[in-house]
């Protein structure tokens, strides 16, 4: 099963819609509740990252028999220092993002903690691609 959703930068009211839709699908498929929680937390943090830091992005999800693959591509500022961005507490988020309850430098560490595989590639000035896999 495939699912894609465009994410608009700065649009906080829609952040979480894709995670919510995927959560419902995984529940219907009877996936273990802990795997569902980890997966949707990772997708949600990724959605919030695009809303917070990029102009726009595309979330693509592929659900197979034994795993879920998630790709989040965005057009935006990119990440200058990925290693530093993975550190808990490091953040370049705006005041607006912080007012929404995010932006304390936990997004990428939370995504990593909730996925079995995570790869991240970023080009400064162009954007970021994050690929995630969770096994059922």
């Amino acid at each position, binding site marked *: 099963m495939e699912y894609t959703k465009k994410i608009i930068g700065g649009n906080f009211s829609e952040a*979480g819609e894709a995670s919510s839709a995927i*959560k419902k699908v995984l529940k219907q498929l009877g996936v273990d509740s802990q795997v569902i929680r980890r997966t949707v*937390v990772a997708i949600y943090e990724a959605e*919030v990252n695009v809303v917070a830091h990029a102009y726009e992005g595309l979330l693509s999800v592929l659900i197979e028999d034994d795993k879920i693959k998630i790709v989040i591509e965005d057009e935006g500022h990119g990440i200058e220092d990925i290693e530093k961005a993975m550190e808990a507490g490091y953040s370049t988020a705006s005041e607006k993002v912080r007012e*929404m309850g995010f932006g304390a430098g*936990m997004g990428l560490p939370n995504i990593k903690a909730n996925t079995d595989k995570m790869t991240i590639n970023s080009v400064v000035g162009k954007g970021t691609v994050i690929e995630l896999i969770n096994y059922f």
Partner: protein
Amino acid sequence: MKIEEIRYLLNAKISSLPKCRDCEYNFAFASDLMSDVLRIRPDEVILITGLCNVQTIRTAEMSDINCVVLGRGKQPNDEMKKLAQDNNITLMYCDYSVYKICSILGKEGIKPLY
């Protein structure tokens, strides 16, 4: 502790009560930072927060938390109420500070997660 007791102790108003009238809550977690909420492993947890926006409810939804208490007199908007209702999340709000909410519930036996 059941919803009605929490509501009574906090002098709270309920704006969404889907189907958890008889759910039992033994733990609470208080935070205005949603990324910290997303790190917990919830089980019978009440989320106490002063953050009042739609992401508060989204975070509860993703974390499998089905009881949210808003403190500091924050009142949920219609979008929050609908999202809570659609996702079977009990949403209540009260005038007490987050600290006071924690101290009242703690005194009555609600435990911290860690």
